[in-house]
Structures are given as structure tokens and as C-alpha cells.
């Protein structure tokens, strides 16, 4: 809940003739910025700081003679607040790398500043696929997920399993429109039909009118092109109006396990969504979750937290190899050159446009009877292999990609 604070500086520099690394200002400073008190504080928030800390510990920075500090800040989901924090961080506090930043509007603003000041930006929380498209920079890597991957995963997989008529409930702002546009394109490309759409004001509180229209359309799938509390409210009210009981399915185009937790399985059951990581997929993930949750008031890690862990790990590897943290472009180039490998995401690569490539997963929310423990919410419907999960390199429109 704090907007700016320093966590413990992690290591002591061993001055005994170890690797002679020149770190700007003597240490590597990692800035984790996200929503610490608002609607996204559970899916990122303090948890991302914890994930970064765990990454630094597991990397063994201390033993390698690297002094790493982590600072956190709250951007309150506002681009002006986020810009100010990042600018002050870089100019005054000598932060070297900015990590996480959910809320695409903030991420896009930070993207520009980090490029101008030649630092590194590792995006885990934000969704805008433009970050590896027209707005790509040599200083930014988009780590965890983006709107294209979500649209592709959810849209395509649902159409292929029979959900071929869609109605969109869209938040009337740029992000909602983008989500709707990407998903509609995927739906139609795979043989489905979009029966209609309605735009609700953003932010919305009462979706009853719009849900009624969705119900009247008789589409098999109601696509929720919104996020955060809008998604939660739409799902709650859809349940109240008997929409899911009436045979229509809701597809949440951007939702996290923390949203399912807030809704409860009774309301959220049957919801279909795409995520990049789930704590219960394998032993390494489970172990991470068990270590993470007690530090974050019992909340289990989301894909955003895992992305922060993975990104920070890879960043430290690159800095270690270069023996310097000063030149953002050089570090990112190194990160693209080295294949990624960590215990949470396994092996992967970072593409020329800054897109981190890994598989995506399609999940369905379990019924209450099927869940055996707290946070046991998902059943895996499909795995989308890494080479199909993200927008093809040539289609992005990123100026860094030589076509």
C-alpha cells in the first residue's frame, strides 16, 4: 500500500578481487511500479516486489558480488503519476530498470521515457500489443502476455470448441475497443460470427441494460472486452440475471486468477480465459506459490508475478554477462541474444521486437465441487504452443524488425 519505499538492499560487495563489474552508481537498482492500492493491487501490487526479490535471491546476486536494490511505487493507474515517478526515479534516484507496470496507458507513457533516457523497461502487467508493434523500442521487452495472445487464445480456442456466435460487451475506451477488435478478428478468421456488440461507459457500475441486450442476441458466447472491476461486475450481474443459467457462456478476455478469487467459484464457474502461467501446472510452480503466498497475505501468484520473476532473472543474467548496467539498449540486446531459462517459464526466447515467447494456456474455471483446495480454480482446456501463441513477427509493424 505504499507508493514509494525502499526494500532492503540485498548484497554486500565482496571487495576481494571478484569480477570487476562497473555498475552505475555502484549498484543495480530495480524499480517495480504498479497499482499498489487499487483494482489491480492483487494481481500485481506488492506481490510483484516480492517476486522481484525472490528472483534476486534465487539468482544469487550476493554471492556473485552484485549489489542489487529494489524499490517499489504506486502509479495509481494514471499515466501522469507513472511518468512522474519514473522520471524522478531515473533522474534523481538512479534506477536502472523499470519492471511490471500494469495498465497499458501507463506502460505506453513509461515506454517513451525509458527509451529517451536509455534505461530498460520489462513489462509484465500491461496488455497493449502495441508495445511490440508500432510503439516498440530497443529498450523495452514485453514479457508475459498481450492483447493479441489473449484474443488468439480465448477467441480461437472457443470457436473451435463450438462457441461460434459471439456478442461483445465492450468498455467504451481505447483498451476495450482494442480487445474487442482483436478478438472479433480472430473469431471471424476461424469461422465464427459476431452477432453484435454494445459499448458500456467506462468505468461502469450497472451492466444490466447491456447484459439484457447480450441475452436477447442469443449468441452462444458473450465476450467481455473489459477489465478489472468492470469484468467482475459484469460477471456478477450476468449471474444475477440468469444469463449463464440460460445456456450462454461468458468469455473473459482479460481476467486473472485473483478476479476468480474475488468472484468465488459459484459465480465464476464455467468462465473461459487465457493465461500465461498458473501455479498448479507443475512442481516448480507449486513450490514458488507455496513460498510466495505467505509473503503476500495468502494471495497466490498470478502470471504477472511470475513474469516479473522471470524477467528480473533474465535481466540479471544479461547484466552479469555485460558486467555493466548502464546502457539500456546494450542490455536489452543481450537479453534478446541469450535464450531465456528460468524455473517458472522454462525455456524461451526474446524476439527482435521485444516480445518474450512462451506457451499460453486456455483455462476453464472449475465448478465449486471440482475444487479441492483454496486457489484450485482452473482446469486446463488447451495449451497453445509458443510458436503459435503470439502475433507473427512480420505482422506487428515494429520499426525494429527488418522486413
Amino acid at each position, binding site marked *: 500500500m505504499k507508493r514509494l519505499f525502499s526494500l532492503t538492499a540485498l548484497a554486500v560487495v565482496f571487495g576481494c578481487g571478484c569480477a570487476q563489474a562497473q555498475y552505475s552508481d555502484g549498484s543495480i537498482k530495480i524499480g517495480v511500479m504498479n497499482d499498489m492500492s487499487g483494482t489491480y493491487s492483487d494481481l500485481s501490487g506488492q506481490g510483484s516486489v516480492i517476486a522481484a526479490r525472490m528472483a534476486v535471491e534465487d539468482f544469487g546476486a550476493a554471492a556473485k558480488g552484485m549489489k542489487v536494490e529494489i524499490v517499489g511505487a*504506486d502509479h495509481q493507474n494514471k499515466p501522469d503519476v507513472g511518468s512522474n515517478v519514473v522520471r524522478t526515479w531515473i533522474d534523481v534516484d538512479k534506477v536502472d530498470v523499470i519492471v511490471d507496470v500494469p495498465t497499458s496507458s501507463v506502460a505506453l507513457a513509461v515506454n517513451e521515457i525509458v527509451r529517451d533516457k536509455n534505461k530498460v523497461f520489462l513489462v509484465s502487467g500491461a496488455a497493449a500489443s502495441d508495445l511490440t508493434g508500432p510503439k516498440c523500442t530497443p529498450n523495452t521487452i514485453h514479457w508475459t502476455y498481450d492483447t493479441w495472445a489473449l484474443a488468439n487464445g480465448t477467441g480461437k480456442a472457443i470457436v473451435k470448441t463450438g462457441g461460434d456466435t459471439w456478442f461483445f460487451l465492450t468498455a467504451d475506451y481505447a483498451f476495450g475497443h482494442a480487445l474487442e477488435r482483436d478478438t472479433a478478428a480472430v473469431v471471424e478468421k476461424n469461422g465464427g460470427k459476431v452477432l453484435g456488440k454494445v459499448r458500456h461507459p467506462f468505468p461502469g457500475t450497472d451492466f444490466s441494460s447491456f447484459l439484457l441486450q447480450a441475452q436477447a442476441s442469443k449468441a452462444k458466447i458473450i465476450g467481455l472486452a473489459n477489465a478489472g472491476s468492470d469484468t467482475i461486475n459484469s460477471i456478477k450481474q450476468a449471474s444475477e440475471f440468469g444469463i449463464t443459467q440460460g445456456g450462454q457462456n461468458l468469455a473473459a478476455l482479460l481476467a486473472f486468477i485473483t478476479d476468480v478469487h474475488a468472484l468465488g467459484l459459484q459465480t465464476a464457474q464455467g468462465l473461459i480465459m487465457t493465461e500465461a502461467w498458473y501455479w498448479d501446472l507443475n512442481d516448480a510452480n507449486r513450490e514458488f506459490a507455496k513460498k510466495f503466498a505467505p509473503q503476500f497475505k495468502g494471495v497466490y501468484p498470478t502470471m504477472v508475478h511470475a513474469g516479473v520473476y522471470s524477467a528480473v532473472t533474465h535481466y540479471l543474467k544479461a547484466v552479469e554477462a555485460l558486467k555493466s548496467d548502464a546502457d539500456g539498449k546494450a542490455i536489452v540486446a543481450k537479453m534478446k541474444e541469450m535464450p531465456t531459462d528460468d524455473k517458472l517459464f522454462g525455456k524461451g526466447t526474446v524476439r527482435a521486437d521485444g516480445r518474450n515467447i512462451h506457451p499460453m494456456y486456455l483455462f476453464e474455471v472449475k465448478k465449486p465441487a471440482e475444487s479441492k483446495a483454496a486457489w484450485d480454480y482452473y482446469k486446463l482446456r488447451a495449451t497453445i504452443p509458443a510458436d503459435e501463441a503470439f502475433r507473427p513477427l512480420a505482422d506487428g509493424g515494429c520499426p525494429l524488425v527488418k522486413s
Partner: protein
Amino acid sequence: MQRVAQATEDHAVRARSEAIAFVVMACALVIAPMFAYPVFLMKALCFALFACAFNLLIGYVGLLSFGHALFFGWASYVGAHAAKVWGFPPELAILSGTATGAGLGAIVGALAIRRQGIYFAMITLALAQMMYFFAIQAPFTHGEDGIQAVPRGKLFGLIDLANQTNMYVTVLVIFLGCFLLIYRIINSPFGEVLKAIRENEARAVSLGYRTERYKLVAFVLSATFAGVAGATKALVFQLASLTDVDWPMSGEVILMTLVGGLGTLFGPVVGAFFMVTLENYLTTIGQWVFVVQGVIFVVCVLLFRRGIVGELAQILRVKL
């Protein structure tokens, strides 16, 4: 005869103390960048100008506008759009923002002036909220993203504003210029009529003044200066976002003016610097900022109505 002489003498005394204060303020602002982060100072200056614009309305005409963010924010959007999309040089971008403030001020003023007191406040709030929703939906504002990467450009084609010092000097000159303009407006025959309207509108009407017209002109002037502040801010931060048109922003400028001192010349400036500094230090406490603001409101209204500068002026027995 004696009363006129007394009034003239008061005028001279007043001008002296205000002139001294102005010189002190200007000097302090000139050397400030050596001690403080220039971006922080520029932010404070933009808000100081915004607060001075707001104070023109509440302090000297007695009209509480609860929607001043409308002018500030939309001028910010238009200025940013002019600089980024239309490629205007910075001085024209700021002028575009100013014109936006003036235009919107005329429209909103014409509607709001029809009611008085509390209704006036509620109407300004409601209209500002309506324009907030427009800002979310209008394509050119890019909604949540805001207008980003606004180029600062070259002032008059010569001075590169990407240089922090150049930008600071520009902002300082704009601020001081507008401040002097506001001073001139307040201490003019027009300004005297405004103060008369604040004291007793019925009497002013009975004296033959078309008070509606005066109020509207004051409103438009206030909105115009708010526009200057907004457009300048867009260039300083190279960003125009929804925060600038949202109602908490209207609340902030009211708080700044209240804390600094309603109806004093320097009150808004002091109040703006106070609040910007406070928020800087309060960043560690997250959402408690709202609570602190609320407490300051309550305390000021109950106990501290004159504000910092007002109390100071009272103690020193000068006009500030």
C-alpha cells in the same frame, strides 16, 4: 476629501507591500532550480498559475467553481494535440490551449452564471463531469492513454525546450507574466466592480452595473488563465491525461487556494507550492493523501479561513 486621501494612501501602501512580495517571489523562483528538482518546480508553477486563475473567480467575485479542471484539462489536451499532431511550435500550442480555455469558459459561464451560490458550484461540477466523460470517449484524447510523447519543440523556432533550463525559464516567464496580468485585472476599475459584486450584488445592480456581464467576463478570464496553465503543463510533462479533467483535480485547486488564502494575491501561489510539496512527501502513504486533503479542508474551513497568506497579512498588517 480625507477619505479619498486615505484610500489613495492605502493604495500606495498596498502596492508597496505587494511589490516587495512580488520581487521576493520572483527572486526565489529564479534561484530555486539550484536547490530543487526543476520538474517539480515547473509542476508547482503550473499549478500556482491554475490556482491564481481560480482565485480570480472565488476571491474577487465570490463565485465558487467546482469544475475548473474542465478548462485546465481540455486546454492541456488541445495544447498537446496542437504540438504533437498539428506540429505547432510551443508558443502556438500554448495559445491554442489558452483559446480553448477561453472558449469553454464562455460556454460554461453562460450556462452557470444563470444561478448563484451553491447552484453555480453544482452546475460547474456537473458540466465538468460531463466533459470528463467526453474526454474518455473522444478519439483525439486517446482516453485512458492520454496524449503522450508531446514534443516540447523550439520556442520561436530558436530555443530548444527539451533543455530543462530553457523550459524552466519559459515556464517562469509565463507564470510571472500571467501573475502580473491578473494583478492588473484585480486592481483596475473592472476589478473594483467585481469586488463590489462580491460584497453585495444587489447594491451593485442598483448602482446600474450589468453584473451578469461582469461575472461572465471574469469567468472567461479565469478560464483563460487556467487554460494557459493547462497547456504549459502539457508541454512540461509532455503528457495530457484524464487526471487533468477529473473532479479531484477541481478539488485540488480549491484546496490550494483555500490553504494559501482566498482573495489574496499570493495565497494561491503559496498554496500551490505547499500542496505540491506535501504530496511529494506524502507519496509514501498512498491513498492517505485523500484523507490528508480532506482534513486540511475541514481544518481550513473551520479554523483557518484566511489561509496561510491571509493570516500572514493579518499579522503583518499589510495587504498581500
